[in-house]
């Protein structure tokens, strides 16, 4: 078990290094940040001073080294717009985002998993058809369209709920519903197929053939096995708690990390963008690590074997 965990840990660190390198490479490839930030017709002294203060005048490998060192210290640069530390800018937006994504995650799990299980147990009945219809709709309706439709109905036509802003919890209702619906649909579809897969296995037939009550078969044998693939999806959802609301935050003008990212991208505020990129990567890696540990706990077979790509 310790060996399994240390393998995972090495992989997680590698992924982080990969992201940092990725960020550094595209940062270098994207041209001269000095010219991007200051306009090309800025005075040469100003450009020179800018380059010095950002360390852009040193050789590339040295920049790469410094870049790693700086990130290890938590120094992710300053926003090129207002000069505040990028990390600070990002961190102060996190609570707003979590205020949307955590309730949405609860909604997704609370609706998606039971719906998927129910649909699988009542295959080809009306409930199953309805669940699948809902899940297909959740998959094909983009979140910005869903959000705007909700605004159109509940804000514009009915006037029940506010269409944007973050003044009270009421403002969060529409964004949470928008986020939760799509995720619940995906989760329902996934849980259903995982359950169907498990229900078709010989050990389920064996369990029910040996006279175990159907309820016990489901609880003791089917659910734990169906949980294995489902945990992956949930892990991915947990990992995207920080940045999973980019579009929805924009639709509802919610001042979270996602909105910050969109504005930073539009303004090409590279320090903020890379901070968010690294922040998201770190969250994803932590979530994946947790999922891996859960796997080890749920499925002892995986403690020694590498998880084959579920293609």
């Amino acid at each position, binding site marked *: 078990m310790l*060996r*399994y965990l*240390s*393998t995972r840990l*090495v992989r997680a660190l590698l992924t982080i290094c990969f992201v940092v390198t990725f960020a550094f490479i595209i940062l270098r490839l994207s041209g001269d940040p000095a010219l991007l930030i200051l306009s090309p017709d800025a005075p040469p002294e100003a450009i020179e001073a800018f380059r010095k203060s950002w360390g852009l005048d040193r050789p590339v490998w040295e920049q790469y080294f410094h870049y790693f060192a700086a990130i290890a210290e938590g120094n992710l640069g300053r926003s090129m717009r207002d000069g505040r530390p990028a990390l600070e800018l990002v961190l102060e937006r996190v609570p707003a985002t979590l205020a949307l994504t955590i309730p949405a995650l609860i909604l997704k799990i609370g609706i998606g998993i039971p719906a998927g299980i129910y649909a699988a147990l009542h295959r080809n009945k009306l409930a199953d058809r309805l669940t699948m219809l809902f899940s297909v709709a959740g998959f094909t309706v983009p979140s910005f369209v869903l959000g705007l439709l909700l605004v159109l109905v509940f804000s514009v036509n009915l006037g029940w709920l506010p269409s944007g802003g973050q003044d009270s919890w009421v403002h969060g209702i529409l964004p949470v519903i928008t986020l939760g619906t799509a995720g619940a649909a995906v989760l329902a579809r996934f849980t259903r197929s995982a359950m169907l897969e498990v229900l078709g296995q010989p050990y389920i037939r064996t369990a029910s053939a040996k006279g175990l009550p159907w309820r016990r078969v489901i609880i003791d044998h089917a659910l734990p096995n169906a949980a294995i693939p489902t945990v992956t999806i949930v892990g991915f959802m947990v990992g995207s708690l920080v940045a999973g609301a980019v579009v929805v935050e924009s639709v509802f003008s919610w001042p979270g990390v996602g909105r910050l990212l969109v504005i930073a991208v539009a303004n090409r505020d590279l320090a903020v963008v890379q901070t968010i990129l690294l922040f998201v990567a770190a969250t994803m890696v932590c979530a994946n690590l947790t999922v891996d540990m859960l796997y080890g706990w749920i499925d002892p077979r995986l403690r*020694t*074997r*590498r998880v084959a790509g579920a293609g």
Partner: protein
Amino acid sequence: MTETLRRPVSDRPLLEVRDLARSFQVRRAGGWFGKAATLHAVDGVSFDLRPGRTLGLVGESGCGKTTTARLVLGVLSPTGGEVRFEGEPVPAPGTAAWRAMRRRMQMVYQDPLGALDRRIPVGIQVMEPLAIHGIGARAERHARAMELLDAVGLGPSFFARYPHELSGGQRQRIVLARALILDPSLLVCDEPISALDVSIQAQVINLLLDLQAKFDLAFLFISHDLKVVRQICHEVAVMYLGRVVEQGDPDQLLIDPAHPYTQALVSAIPVAAAARRRPRLILKGDPPNPVDRPAGCAFHPRCPAATARCVVDTPVLKPMPDGRIVACHVAHGEADSPRLAA
């Protein structure tokens, strides 16, 4: 081997295998952190095969038969020893010289369905080796494929069929036709009939014998079935954990096995006539993991006749008075210490 020594020098063996060895670096269970170990899949195997003859390789799964076959074909590079085919060393896999050598040595597989491409009519697949080696125009290739289909006992109507439309025996015939279209002199057969029904097995064996006579083929015939080997082979080598333990005439081996391992294999063959029934020798346990090859004679932990010498001293292949060669202290009467068992 002793037989070949008596023959005139001009009649060179088609295939000469000398001290062939192949080891793999493996990790014991535990992923990245498992201990590195060396697996000796094949360890010092030597034999000769003359044109038009058949040598059988027999043993339990994991004894190195298939690895030997892959080494002979050059699909795998040996870590020791050498393979000479028609007097030339077998080149490294993937090189132009290796590809050219494919024309002279071919392979037949255990699973004929897996060895055929499901989306291509079998006739086209029979023609494919000619296309790969750029032989003949399309019309000639087609005519040649028809000849081969006929030679393996399938009519021209089979040309346009797909693999899944054929029976197991028919598929194996297609694989044979594809292997023979380049007119090779050596055919390596890796358990060619073990996936077939018993009734079909006999047909395929007869076909193999016909083809051998017709095309003057040499077979390296790998099997775990001693009875089949007796029907088809001129010589048999019994392998255990990467080494040959006994080699000689198949009738001799079957009637009077010298090595205790061969004795056990022979006693496992079911016999119909009650009069010929022999006491059954049942081996203790599984073959050991080749990574943990026992010291001395590798067979001693399972051997009913093992002596103290067998534990420390590895026996070498030596000729018996009747011509066959055996690697066993007991069989050669050299076991100077008492038995371990019982």
